[in-house]
């Protein structure tokens, strides 16, 4: 019988477990990206295909879709582990809950936020966003989706035990997404206007580290409440 792994090794294993589980069902990983692509296709139909108008709206459109894709995937973050009892085992284990939660959120960010940021330039070009604004888009999405993952996980942890959590998590979490949307879309619009992008990215980075420092406490508390309920 082997001794319990150290905290960092444990986080590494948990992260690898999450990623392996996700990659075994590749369609589930692709779902947010497909959602992203589908909704991008809706906007030219709704707003009209005029390229300059689409370009003007593109920063907001792309950011709002990233927000919704993140929200929809956050809802599923703890669900299967809650249902099969492994979440309860995690709470009972001697490992610090803060770090375990961090592994969950990190996995969610890697599988949705980072992938979305990587694929976003393709859709940005389809919406006629000038190439000069692409670095700002990718950078702001990388940092911003990290904040979204933390905040979304707070909502997910509070609603995981509820049967109809779907609409509720949107009501709980979307108000907290708004600052990220403002600075994220602001970064891209700033890049379009030729303004420096670094201040926006700095604020998003600050929000990210703030969320990473405090978010896991709230997520852990939420998970304990959901398990007890």
């Amino acid at each position: 019988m082997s001794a319990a792994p150290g905290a960092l090794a444990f986080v590494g294993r948990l992260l690898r477990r999450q990623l392996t589980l996700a990659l075994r069902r590749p369609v589930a990983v692709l779902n947010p990206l497909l959602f992203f692509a589908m909704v991008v296709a809706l906007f030219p139909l709704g707003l009209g295909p005029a390229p300059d108008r689409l370009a003007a709206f593109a920063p907001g459109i792309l950011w709002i879709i990233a927000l919704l894709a993140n929200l929809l995937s956050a809802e599923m973050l703890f669900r299967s582990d809650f249902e099969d009892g492994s979440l309860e085992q995690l709470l009972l284990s001697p490992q610090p809950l803060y770090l375990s939660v961090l592994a969950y959120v990190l996995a969610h960010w890697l599988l949705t936020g980072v992938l979305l940021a990587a694929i976003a330039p393709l859709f940005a070009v389809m919406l006629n966003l000038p190439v000069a604004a692409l670095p700002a888009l990718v950078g702001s999405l990388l940092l911003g989706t990290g904040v979204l993952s933390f905040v979304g996980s707070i909502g997910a942890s509070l609603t995981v035990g509820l049967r109809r959590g779907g609409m509720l998590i949107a009501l709980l979490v979307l108000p907290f997404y708004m600052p990220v949307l403002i600075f994220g879309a602001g970064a891209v619009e700033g890049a379009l206007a030729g303004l420096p992008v670094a201040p926006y990215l700095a604020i998003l980075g600050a929000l990210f580290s703030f969320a990473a420092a405090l978010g896991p406490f709230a997520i852990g508390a939420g998970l304990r409440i959901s398990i007890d309920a």
Partner: protein
Amino acid sequence: MWSFFHKLGSPPWLYRIAGVLLRWLLPVSLLALGTGLIWGLLFTAPDFRQGNSYRIIYIHVPAAVVALAGYYVMALAGAVSLIWKMKVADIAMKATAPVGAALTFIALVTGSIWGKPTWGTWWVWDARITSMLILLFLYLGVIALYEAYDNKAAAGRACAVLSLVGTVNIPIIYKSVDWWYSLHQPASIKFTGESTIDPTMLYPLLLSIIAFYGVFTCALLGNMRAEILARETRTGWVRRLAGGEV
């Protein structure tokens, strides 16, 4: 001193003391509200630019001020109930949410009515208006989360966590929206430095704000009493209170 804290855990005592408080506070607050509103609406000079339409300030500003403060009351009660597991704090938190939501709604509606003659439009996506709207969503989120749980003890704790997350986020939301776009005038009343509002307008406004705090407290106490009764329906003292013999 300590017996007071112990008594707070007793629902019948809490119910009775809230009733006593209400009996004194309600007439005083209503009197203050009436005085403040009549003074503000009838006996102050019209504004030199906005004419008489500015008088809605005597409802708009107090409602907005107390709605914001109410969120912190709710979060503080939530923190107390999470940390010390005090029943009274849990009840207070649950009772604050609808009152706060109602005040936020009043602030939004009066602001909208004020905006029409002043800015020429019912609604603008201005920083302060947007953050009040977000505040309304936050209140509604807490109410919806509470209703979604079947286990009410867990519901209370979940709402406490949510409102605490909200306290951290409200300044961020507020500042971000502020940088985003602003049309709303900056605050006219300052604790430090010169207020930019004439004293003859200021005093009825301050009275109204105090009166709104009083009315808020009364609504809170009334809600708490109702909540205590709802939670204790099956106990002897509630049945005796309702007149039925046990």
